[in-house]
């Protein structure tokens, strides 16, 4: 029988146990570097980032596990990149597709009130990424999203060129003048209303925020105002016609619906007004001279008073 070399056996056992213990219990090296490490090289970004709301993730976001890892909450684990300084070793959201960018943002922000109308919004459908409008780590005078009227309008115009041109027409809402911004009327995150329109007082049209006198409810309503909104008659971005109307003459606009057709012929509303007006007379060429309560009347079924 061969004698057992105790010291050697102990050493082998020690090595074996060490290996087993390491394999079973030792956590792998953390793939995260931590925001402080990121800041050693990316000083400007870290300084600017510290002034933004995103910085809160570093100190308070324990529920998502990003405490102290705000940078890596978007860029992914950065230990490898910290060691190699190779850009290829870390995720750059700026070079990802819109869906991938949104996925990163919505990992934290999906549960916020701004997201409830997102699915219906054309921004979501056209894959306009969150970072198209939002700067994640602001630099200089930037913030996470522009809040000044002129800056908001300029940002929207970057994509909506045709809309920007409409505001150069003589009759327009006063955006170019800085009196209002696109987001006064539109919710860029989406809404339940057509055109991503803002709401007023829960589900009333956002136009009523400023045009409170059109709010009603009226005992005698004008159907299109309620059913299809102000844009039935008005070109809200701008028009060559007074009052931002879709047509230069009011009679032309009114007759398109009030076409004097027999009732039930077309299945549409409002086709049968009284048919005695002589449109050759200037008195009848602007219907709203007499039917002045065109947005709805409190006292007259013909919208005269």
């Amino acid at each position, binding site marked *: 029988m061969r004698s057992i070399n105790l010291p050697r056996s102990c050493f082998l056992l020690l090595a074996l146990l060490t290996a087993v213990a390491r394999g079973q219990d030792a956590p792998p090296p953390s793939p995260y570097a931590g925001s402080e490490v990121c800041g050693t090289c990316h000083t400007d970004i870290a300084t600017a980032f510290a002034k933004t709301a995103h910085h809160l993730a570093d100190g308070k976001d324990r529920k998502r596990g990003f405490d102290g890892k705000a940078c890596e909450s978007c860029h992914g684990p950065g230990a490898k990149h910290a060691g190699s300084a190779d850009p290829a070793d870390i995720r750059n959201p700026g070079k990802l597709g819109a869906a991938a960018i949104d996925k990163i943002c919505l990992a934290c922000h999906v549960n916020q009130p701004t997201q409830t109308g997102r699915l219906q919004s054309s921004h979501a459908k056209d894959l306009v990424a969150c970072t198209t409008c939002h700067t994640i780590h602001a630099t200089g005078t930037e913030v996470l999203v522009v809040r000044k009227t002129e800056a908001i309008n300029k940002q929207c115009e970057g994509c909506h060129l045709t809309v920007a041109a409409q505001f150069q027409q003589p009759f327009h809402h006063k955006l170019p003048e800085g009196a209002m911004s696109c987001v006064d009327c539109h919710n860029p995150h989406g809404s339940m209303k057509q055109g991503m329109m803002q709401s007023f007082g829960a589900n009333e049209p956002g136009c009523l925020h400023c045009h409170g006198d059109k709010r009603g409810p009226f005992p005698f309503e004008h159907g299109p105002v309620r059913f299809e909104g102000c844009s039935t008659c008005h070109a809200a971005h701008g028009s060559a016609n007074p009052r931002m109307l879709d047509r230069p003459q009011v009679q032309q606009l009114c*007759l398109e619906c009030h076409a004097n057709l027999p009732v039930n012929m077309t299945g549409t509303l409002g086709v049968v007004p009284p048919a005695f007006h002589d449109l050759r007379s200037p008195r009848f060429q602007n219907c*709203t001279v007499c039917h002045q309560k065109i947005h709805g009347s409190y006292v007259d079924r013909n919208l005269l008073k």
Partner: protein
Amino acid sequence: MRSLLAAVLFLPLAAQTPPAAASAPTSAPAATPATAAQAATPVPAAEPDISGWIEFGYRWRSDVNGSLDTYRSVVNLGSGPKLFGADVTVIDPKKRLFDALHVRASGWGGDPYGTLHVDAEKSKLYRFDADYRDLTYFNDLPSYADPLLTRGIILDEQSFDTRRHVGGYSLELLPGNWFVPYVTYDRDGNAGTGVMAFTQNSNEYAVPTTLNDLTNLYRGGVRFELRRFHATIEEGGTTFSSGQSLYQSPGAVNPGNLNTPIFGQTLDLTSAAASYGISGSSTYTKALFSSNAFSWMDIYGQFLFSQPSSNVHYEENATGNFYLPSEIVFYQSEQYLVSAAAKLPHTTANFGAEIRPLKRVRMTESWLTDRMHDAGNSSSLQTTGSGTPATALLLASSLASNYNQTETNLYFEVTDHLTVRGGYRYVWGDASDAVLPQAGELTGSEQAKLRQNVGLGGIVYRPIQKLLLTAETEVASSGGVYFNTSLYDYQKVRMQARYQATASLSAALDFTYLNNENPTPGINYNFRSQQEAASIFWSPQNGKMITFQGSYSWSSLRSDIFYLVPETLAQATSNYTEDAHTATALFNLNLGHWGIVAPKLTAGGSVFISNGTRPTRYYQPMAKLWVPMLKHTQAFAEWWFYGYGEAFYPFEGFGTHLASIGLRYTR
């Protein structure tokens, strides 16, 4: 030996601590970053407490060449000392009352659009936001509403000179926490004067009017922001009041008096007084939630209910010589009293889900319903001095709509650079409009149904990092709509391209197209519009010498629809066409050093030219010269020209020069 065994027993425990080598990438730099942490201090000690700029000066307006009323309706900038703008940020390094306070203002000193914005925030404690706007609304365009034009009287019978004050104030507590209560108050008031028509049976008379209205909106709620679930519950309410009066002093001569005799008598208004008194209120409830229910699914939902109501008292007294054609009778005085009320319960709900079954496939599903039902009633008493008995009338009105929509979209990421989308939307609903009892030629009750099938498609393609192409389309077929001009059988297309050629040069293209047809006999509606726009931004050497931004847009619109001429009932077509060109350009030039100063010039403007049913021209060239004066101060001189003209209403054209000088202080 014992010590060896002890070592054997302890080594596995020791092995559970990560080896020093493995932790090197994290721990080694972690030692240095103490300095980085200092650099990342939110408010570096050296940073000034107050930063920003303020711009003020004086503006002159030349005499308006042409119509002053049109100028005021379109531009309305005047002379005088002005606060052109200000933007100030105050940072409190000790974070006592606030972390940061922002104040922005523009257009004060008699300008038509004055704005003031203040917001303050203290991290994790509160966020306050206040916004106030003082807006002037002047509108006096005789081409819009002048039935007296053929008699040489230029008078818009729908003109206004009012001032609107819009304020919004919100306070959010504990922002960033999982539990966020908030309160908000909005106020919107309007007051002013104008000219309106006082309508009598066979004639209308332009009379002065005063108008005012005020809406207060109060709301408060609480948000719960959890890791996988969000909910907001909000309660709110409004109060509303509106008053309007029309009046003509006894004995005044009204320009609308009809001097052409009817059955030997002329019609005139010798005195009038009418007043509206409207009060209203509303309560509403809002609940919404979103949830990342599973890693592969998000769900969203909203429920909104509002119930505004209004009460009306109207009184009208008039004297003159009036004519009632239905009874062929003349009368000299009239009193009209109305008491009315209306209520509009309105419920909206939607639900949606985004499902991600595969890595490259997403599906969205949404459903929406919107139901409103306006119910009104009115009691009126009309007394005339004709000797006929007073007429009492009770009316009940109703306007109801039930709108529903469901939509499904499927997104497929073909490659990392290409995503395509296809979807389907079905819209259905019904609407009714009734005022009973029926009167004269007016229909008492009408109904309409809405049925629409819409196909959806889209593509987002980024072949290279610098180029983004987007296109989307909607193609619809309808079985019923609410109005003659509603979208019926339509095709919508939108395409965009954005190209960042170099760091200093970018360009964009935008194209929209809409074709809408309603072939229903009697309507025969054909509508087509398209708009193309291009823009370019060039800023060589990071804008050191020159920056240029320009855009050009061409739009065309054509609309044809049948109608019957009211008096003859002959068939006719209403045509509207518009071809418009819009161009904007803006140069920023550094003019180099002129002695000790280095002036900068900004020049450009916009031009709008349209042809068609209402040919119009509108020019806005401008130039602004900046001259640095001191370390923080720049002087500027600015020139604008506004020119407007219409081919068919030349009396409404105008041309005006505006010049301003001022200082801009920056800190």
